[in-house]
């Protein structure tokens, strides 16, 4: 590896996660189908049965490749251990929720504890997991010795649940978060981020693309909470490990908008399946239309169909368009972070 720089090595190793994620997703599709772990695609007139919990391929691939990269490059094991534990724990919470169908309040509470590895390892190994100085674009930064460590737990809970809430349509989450991971990878390369950061964003991108292949319209694999929560937690953990906190918030604007409007209307943590007033309805020609019920939450999808009914593919394209816009702003944020007025 003498002639290759470390960023290139990081991206080459991360590329290997694509076929592994692709194969693992395929394995879960067959295994889960055979064991009756299926969900109904409610946004299609034929209501096909689709294997659920196939998103388990994502945390498994991320953890395997994190450890492989750490071994190959002799990089410090601490950030990888923190990252793998956060992703693994949130995947576990998601898997339990998929099987037991817990009440909506449990997911945000349980995922709060999933951030503990970052906090504990950060205390034990100062400077290797998080930095309590928040870097602010154009304005320098400020030291948060008390608040920052406490915020870590909230960050993991918020990012995992925000991603969990914006996966209503085929490929909307996997495609959207792939755009975010790709954008932040480009931002990291442009700003000279360290090779660990480059690797973690690249592995998230390629792992998601492997899953996306089966999850895209018409979906043959559903992520389930196991995939959604661990992908969101992965983004949150990466924001902390790579010091891209503010840029990550910006990249997740579509998730933030969706979660905020959902919670501001419903005023409690609840599952979509428990909602009495659905945000959208399926028309007789297979399109999605905004619900006429004034009690329905103003989700991102409902906002996108405000002008009239649209097909699932059109709405997913719009959601990706919004992720492209927010990720572009995130890259600008990263570029501005090194500049002080």
């Amino acid at each position: 590896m003498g002639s290759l720089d470390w960023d290139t090595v990081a991206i080459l190793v991360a590329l290997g996660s694509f076929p592994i994620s692709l194969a693992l997703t395929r394995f879960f599709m067959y295994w889960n189908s055979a064991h009756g772990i299926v969900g109904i695609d409610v946004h299609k007139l034929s209501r096909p049965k689709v294997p659920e919990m196939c998103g388990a391929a994502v945390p498994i691939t991320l953890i395997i490749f994190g450890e492989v990269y750490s071994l190959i490059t002799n990089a410090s094991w601490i950030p990888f251990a923190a990252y793998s534990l956060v992703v693994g724990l949130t995947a576990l919470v998601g898997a339990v929720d998929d099987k037991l169908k817990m009440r909506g309040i449990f997911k945000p509470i349980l995922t709060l504890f999933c951030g503990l590895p970052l906090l504990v390892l950060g205390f034990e190994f100062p400077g290797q997991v998080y930095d309590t100085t928040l870097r602010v674009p154009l304005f320098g930064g400020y030291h948060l010795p008390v608040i920052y460590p406490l915020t870590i737990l909230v960050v993991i809970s918020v990012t995992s649940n925000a991603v969990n809430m914006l996966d209503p349509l085929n490929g909307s989450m996997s495609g959207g978060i792939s755009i975010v991971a790709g954008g932040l990878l480009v931002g990291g390369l442009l700003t000279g981020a360290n090779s660990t950061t480059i690797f973690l964003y690249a592995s998230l991108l390629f792992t998601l693309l492997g899953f996306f292949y089966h999850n895209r319209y018409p979906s043959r694999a559903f992520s389930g909470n196991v995939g959604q929560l661990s992908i969101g937690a992965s983004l949150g953990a990466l924001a902390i490990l790579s010091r891209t906190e503010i840029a990550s918030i910006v990249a997740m604007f579509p998730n933030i908008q969706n979660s905020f409007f959902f919670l501001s209307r419903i005023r409690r943590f609840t599952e979509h399946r428990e909602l009495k007033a659905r945000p959208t309805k399926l028309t007789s020609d297979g399109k999605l239309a905004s619900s006429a019920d004034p009690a329905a939450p103003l989700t991102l999808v409902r906002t996108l169909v405000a002008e009239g009914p649209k097909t699932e593919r059109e709405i997913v394209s719009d959601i990706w368009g919004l992720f492209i816009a927010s990720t572009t702003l995130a890259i600008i944020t990263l570029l501005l972070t090194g500049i002080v007025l």
Partner: protein
Amino acid sequence: MNIRVVAYQTGIFVIQWGLMILGFGILTKIIAPLKLLQPTLPLVMYFDAGVKALIALAFSVTWLFIWDRQVRYYFFRRTR
């Protein structure tokens, strides 16, 4: 892709992004350097951090309120 709705939403994102950077700027340059109490007193560090966190929380609520108004304006104008 519906260019109009994506463009409108992108406009909202740009406004929210600008406000967020400005808010973090105010926190960095004005709020964070404030010394609210004598640093020799016990637990002062925690009180100071708590008050500043509350100010940051107030900023966040205002930020979300502005976001809320923009989306609602669009949604209810389109579905009228």
